C-alpha cells in the first residue's frame, strides 16, 4: 500500500498543457419559477401537494396518522406519530410509511429539492420511507442547479441531497418503474411565501 508521498511520486506528469480555469457561467431562469418547478416536478414523477399553507401539510399528516400509517415528521409544527428524538439508529426507520421533511431550496429546471442533513434526525430518513413529503417555501425556488449551488454557498462539511421525484429505475427493458430502493412517491408542498 502506498503512502500519499509514494503515490504522488509515482504520477507521471500530465501532457496536457497548463490550461487556465474557465469562468463557469451561472445559468439563470426567469419567472414564473413556481409554475416551472411544478411542471418539471410532475414530469419527473413527483406530485404537487394539495394546498400552499403549512396548515395543509399538518392536515395531511393528521390524515395519514389517522389511517394508522407510520409518519415521521421532521418539519417543525407538523405532527407525525414517530418521535424523531427517539431515533438512535437509522435501521429503526425501516417501517416508516411517510417522512415529512423541510427542503431548503427547490430547483425549477429539474424539479428537485435540496434537503440538508442538518434538518434530518438521520440521513436515511428521506430514503428508507415508503413515501416522501417535502415542504419548500416558494421564495426558495431557484431556476437552475447552478443557481441553487450558488445560493447554498460553501457546504463546509455535512451532507445534503437534491431529490428529483421518486426513486426510479428503467433497468428492465427500459420500462420506467417508480420505487426502486428509495421512496415510491414524492410529494412537494410549495408554501406561499410570507
Amino acid at each position: 500500500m502506498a503512502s500519499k508521498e509514494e503515490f504522488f511520486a509515482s504520477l507521471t506528469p500530465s501532457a496536457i498543457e497548463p490550461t487556465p480555469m474557465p469562468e463557469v457561467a451561472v445559468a439563470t431562469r426567469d419567472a414564473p419559477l413556481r409554475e416551472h418547478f411544478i411542471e418539471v416536478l410532475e414530469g419527473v414523477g413527483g406530485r404537487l401537494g394539495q394546498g400552499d399553507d403549512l396548515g395543509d401539510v399538518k392536515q395531511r399528516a393528521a390524515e395519514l396518522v389517522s389511517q394508522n400509517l407510520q409518519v415521521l415528521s421532521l418539519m417543525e409544527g407538523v405532527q407525525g406519530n414517530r418521535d424523531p428524538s427517539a431515533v438512535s439508529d437509522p435501521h429503526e426507520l425501516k417501517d416508516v410509511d411517510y417522512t415529512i421533511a423541510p427542503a431548503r431550496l427547490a430547483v425549477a429546471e429539474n424539479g428537485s429539492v435540496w434537503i440538508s442533513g442538518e434538518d434530518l434526525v438521520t440521513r436515511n430518513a428521506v430514503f428508507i420511507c415508503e413515501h416522501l413529503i417535502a415542504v419548500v417555501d416558494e421564495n426558495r425556488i431557484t431556476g437552475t442547479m447552478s443557481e441553487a449551488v450558488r445560493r447554498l454557498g460553501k457546504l463546509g462539511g455535512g451532507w445534503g441531497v437534491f431529490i428529483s421525484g421518486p426513486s426510479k429505475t428503467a433497468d428492465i427493458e427500459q420500462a420506467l418503474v417508480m420505487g426502486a430502493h428509495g421512496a415510491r412517491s414524492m410529494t412537494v408542498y410549495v408554501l406561499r411565501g410570507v
Partner: protein
Amino acid sequence: MSQTHARKVETFTADEARVDWHSAALLALRDKRDLQAKSLPEWEQMRETASRMKLYVLSHLPELLEQFTSNCEANGMEVHWARDAKEHNEIVAGILKERGKKKLVKSKSMLTEEVHLVPHLEKHGIECIETDLGERILQLREEPPSHIVVPAIHLKKEEIGELFHEKIGTQAGASDPTYLTHAARESMRQEFLSADAAMTGVNMAIADEGAFVVCTNEGNADMGAHLPDLHIAVMGMEKLVPDADSAALLMRMLARNATGQPSTSYNSIFGAPRPGCQLHIVIVDNGRSLRMADRRHAEIYKCIRCGACINTCPVYRRGGGHSYDYFIPGPIGLAIAGDNPEANSEAWACTLNGSCNNVCPVKVPLRETIAYHREQLAQQKQLPYHKNAYMPLAGKIFGSPRGLSMAMAAARVGLRIMPQTLQRRIGGWSKSRDFPKPPAESFAHWYRKNRGE
C-alpha cells in the same frame, strides 16, 4: 491474443430481431438526450466550459488532489492512495477486515469493475451485494455489464423474470417490469438492512470543499451508505472538479446526456461522515497518469461516464456490449484501451463517423483518439484482420492514379456480375453487409464527359 471484435460480435448478431430491438432501445435514449440538450439554450456553451474545466483539472491534478485531500481530512474523512488495482483492492479489504466487516452493499462503480474488486473481497470472505437493479441482475447471472449506465440493456424482461423466479422466488413466467422491480426492492431491502458496510463510487469530487457527489436514480447509493457505520467511496483521480460551481455544471449535464432526464433522482453530496461513523475515500491511479502523459491519449480522462457516446455508436448498438475486450464498451472504451496490442481489433470496432464526438458533454476527442490507436498499432505492425499483409499492397495500388482507376474498374465489373450470395461468401466486410451498387462509370470519366474542357 484475444478473439477479434468481428468474431465476438457474431454471438450477438446471430439473433437479428434482438439486434434491432437493442439498437432501437439505445436510439431512444439518444433521442431523449437530444430533447434535453436542445431544451437548454446554453448547452453548447456548457460543453465548452465543461471541456475546458476538465482540461484545467487534468493539467493541475497534483495540487487539486492535495487540496481535496486536506479538505476531506478536515471534514473528518480518511483518504487512501492506490497506485494500481492491487493496492486498491488491498486497501478496501484491509479497511473491511480490520473492522470485522462481513457484508458490503455496493452501488454502481465502473472503477470496481476495472480493478476486479468483488472477486478479491469474496476471497477474503466478504459478501458483496450489487444494489443497482441492473448490476444486481447481472451479478445473479454471473455476467459482466454490457453498458456503463444501463448495464442490463441486452436482456429481455422474460430472461430477467426467469432469473428472479429462480433466485428470489418471483412467480414462474412473470415478466412485468413493475412486478419484477418491486420484488427486487423487497429482496434488496433485506440486504441493505443486514449489511455492515457500504461502498459507493464518486461522480464528482469537489476539491475546494472536500466533498463528493454521488448520482443515482434508484437511491441505492444513499440507501446503502446511510445505514451501516462504514462507507467507503472509491474514485479514479480524474473525478476531481475544482469547486461546487463546476460540480453543478456537470450535474446539469450528466443525466440529461445519459438518459434524457433533467436530473438523476438523487444527487447526494457527501462532505462528512455521519456522527459516530467512518467515511473512507480511496483515490486510484491504475494507469491513468501514464495515459495522461501521452497528449494524444490524455483527454479520455475528461469523461464523466454518461454513456451517450455508447448509445449513439452504430457499432455498439448493433454489436452489443459483450463484444468488446475492454470492460467499458463503445467509443469511450475504445478510446481508453484501444491501443492494447493483445486486443488489437478493438480500434477497428468503429466507423470513425464521429457521432460520439458530437454528443460528448465534455468534448472528449473520441474519434481522433481511436484513430490514433490505429496509427500506433500500424507502427508496431500489430494490425488486426491481416491488415499487415494487404494494407501495404492496397496502399501501393491506391497510391497511384493508374492503379486506383484500374482497381475501381475491376470492382465495378466484379460487383455487377457477381451475385450477392457469392459476394457475402467473400467473408470479412461483406459477411453482414451488402456492397453498394456500383456506378456505371468512374467519377473521373463522368467529370471529363460533363465538365471537361
